[in-house]
């Protein structure tokens, strides 16, 4: 981008002390784009495999239930719940609420706790049913 070097820039990311609000903000972008690429491609692969037939579906299941497959699925599920709770936080902020420093910090931390708890519950349920 064209910028005159003689003009000052406002202080940006480098000078701020990291806080929960900054973490939840960048994680919203990271999880969103992770879901948009790996998540969406995985979804289409699953649907296409199911539409193609038993053999294609077996290949999908074989990859998805490999150790790397589980790692990706657990990661994507956490990304999904993090993006979900962070997105709900955005809806509240869109209404102009939740900007008080204490509230903002509390709900930022809450999105991480809630997403980790939900991901944990979902996979406990899945592995509990498989046993």
């Amino acid at each position, binding site marked *: *981008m064209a910028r005159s070097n003689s003009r000052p820039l406002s202080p940006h990311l480098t000078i701020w002390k990291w806080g929960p609000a900054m973490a939840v903000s960048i994680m919203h*972008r990271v999880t*969103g*784009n992770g*879901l*948009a690429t790996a998540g*969406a*491609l995985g*979804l*289409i692969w699953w*649907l*296409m495999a*199911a*539409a193609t*037939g*038993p*053999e294609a*579906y*077996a290949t999908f*299941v074989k990859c998805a239930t490999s150790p790397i497959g589980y790692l990706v699925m657990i990661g994507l599920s956490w990304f*999904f719940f993090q993006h*979900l709770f962070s*997105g*709900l936080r*955005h*809806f509240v902020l*869109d209404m102009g609420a939740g900007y008080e420093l204490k509230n903002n910090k509390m709900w930022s931390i809450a999105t991480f706790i809630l997403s980790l708890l939900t991901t944990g519950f*979902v996979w406990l*349920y*899945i592995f509990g049913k498989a046993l």
Partner: protein
Amino acid sequence: MGTGTGIGRVRGLGSAKHGAHHWLAQRYTAVGNLLLVLWLVFSLLSLPGLDYESVVSWIHNPLVAVPLMLMVVSIFMHLRVGMQVMLEDYVHDKGLAFFSMLVLNFYAFGGAAAGVFAIAKIAFIGVVKP
């Protein structure tokens, strides 16, 4: 009057009132995703199994196929506007920015079409015997 673009001032039109369109599209599809993906998660968790026959006979049901199609469309609309914002922030070269928008649009429309087609095929044909 007095605000908006130069040509708008000349014509005396002001804002076209479409400024919030992108932002709103992100929110509408976010609500769609919230409802539909949660529905998918709960449905998959309550299915008897995730083998070929269980999944295909589940999607074969019209009351599953239609919301699943809506989910795919909502997801790809949401990721299209979302990734656009990310690319606009990080891709500074003009030519590369144009190219990235091209690829993003191909990806979003291609992915949505593939997903909807796959669901439609399952909805119409159902379980394929090997």
